[in-house]
């Protein structure tokens, strides 16, 4: 089980460790003052990655090969030169799409037999690939140049964002990505060709007749069960969805405790029917219902949910957990989440009870067990 948790926040990177009496505490603070939008660890190499979102200097990527002792800036994913005269209009605003990375929003290792392979998603919705551990990056043109990409539009951010990458454990040439707002896409040939999949999702922010279009869905986050990769879960802008056929078709889960709205979702690495969510009231009211911070858990594929509260504040709690602010370790027992109000909670028993590590960290964007 993991004993190290990485926390990327609005004002720095924190390493949190489990120590005496199994209590978690902040062991190290780095990059104080800088905004990190994402943190990740590659279990194949043991390398850690952090993505910066500097307000002035743009997004940057750093890597540590010694568990955070030292960091170096890696290559920066960048779009190729936009062809002169090309029309690439944002469907909402009618303005030209800027081919420039605004935020790193997904970073996922490739398969076990692909050392050095990383997939990286961005705002705007570009997917990039590295085969040297992040030293160099290339745009996955098969997706960016797909005509369907031109229908994508922004959700909470003004521009569309690619935030979820699920690599098939048995065949790493099969990769699924999720985009806000562009739905779910799959390649079976290592990124050369792509198809928009995912029938069954519902976008209630669209007019009747367009709500079931797979190409404009807003999956806030998509996760895949490691040992049963045909089961995937999505926390969508309009609810919770589950697929048992490799993201081809999705079924809505209509009841899940206080609400089915939220951003984050975690799935157990070996139990595909076990998943966790952190609900907020609804899309235009993004705080826990009644000021009670809870985690919901299903163990039966969404037929029923438990509402987990032990160790979580049940009075005047207005924490929101962003899509990358929730993590599960490889054992499936340890979970952690960090909130927009800088609270950090860890569970070592599958969510039954939670330890508050801090209520005073900066707003948290991303947590990841290393």
């Amino acid at each position, binding site marked *: 089980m993991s004993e190290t948790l990485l926390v990327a926040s609005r004002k720095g990177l924190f390493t949190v460790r489990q120590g005496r009496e199994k209590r978690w505490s902040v062991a190290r603070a780095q990059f104080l003052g*800088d905004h990190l939008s994402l943190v990740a660890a590659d279990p194949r190499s043991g390398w850690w990655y952090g993505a910066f979102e*500097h307000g*002035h*200097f*743009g997004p*940057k990527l750093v890597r540590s090969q010694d568990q955070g002792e030292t960091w170096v800036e890696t290559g920066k994913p*960048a*779009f190729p030169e936009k062809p002169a005269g090309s029309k690439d209009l944002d469907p909402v605003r009618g303005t030209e799409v800027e081919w*420039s990375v605004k935020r790193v929003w997904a970073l996922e290792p490739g398969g076990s037999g692909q050392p050095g392979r990383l997939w990286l998603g961005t705002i705007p919705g570009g997917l990039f690939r590295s085969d040297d551990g992040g030293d160099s990056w290339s745009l996955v043109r098969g997706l960016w140049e797909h005509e369907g990409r031109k229908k994508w539009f922004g959700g909470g951010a003004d521009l569309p964002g690619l935030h979820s990458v699920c690599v098939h454990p048995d065949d790493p040439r099969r990769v699924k990505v999720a985009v806000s707002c562009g739905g779910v896409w799959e390649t079976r040939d290592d990124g050369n060709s792509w198809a928009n999949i995912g029938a069954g999702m519902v976008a209630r922010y669209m007019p009747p007749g367009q709500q079931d279009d797979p190409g404009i869905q807003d999956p806030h986050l998509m996760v895949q069960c490691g040992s049963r990769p045909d089961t995937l879960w999505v926390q969508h802008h309009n609810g919770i969805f589950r697929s048992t056929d490799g993201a081809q078709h999705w079924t809505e889960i209509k009841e899940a405790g206080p609400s089915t709205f939220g951003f984050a979702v975690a799935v157990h690495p070996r139990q595909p029917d076990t998943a966790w969510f952190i609900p907020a009231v609804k899309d235009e009211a993004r705080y826990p219902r009644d000021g009670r911070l809870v985690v919901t858990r299903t163990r039966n594929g969404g037929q029923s949910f438990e509402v987990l509260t032990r160790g979580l504040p049940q009075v005047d709690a207005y924490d929101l957990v962003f899509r990358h602010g929730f993590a599960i370790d490889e054992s499936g027992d340890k979970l952690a989440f960090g909130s927009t109000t800088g609270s950090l909670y860890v569970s070592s028993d599958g969510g039954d009870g939670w330890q508050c590590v801090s209520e005073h960290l900066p707003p948290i964007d991303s947590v990841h067990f290393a």
Partner: protein
Amino acid sequence: MPRVTFTANIQRHLPCPPVDVSGRTVREVLDAVFAQNPLARGYVLDDQGAVRHHMQIFVGGAQVRDRVALSDAVPAGAEVYVMQALSGG
């Protein structure tokens, strides 16, 4: 030769000492700087080579007008300052 000086705020991310380079336009001058300091390019320019939204460049005390093609002239001996805007922080 023009002298290029970077905002102090960039230095904790990436050392960018003042440098004397040749060039007749902002583009030529910056390309010469980035040839010596390749990582600095991404801090100042976006993926398409335009000045980042919240960065600004001064030549002889005046803000450059062409933030996309960087065609503003740079006189010999001019002072070029690469600064961050007050916005964007």
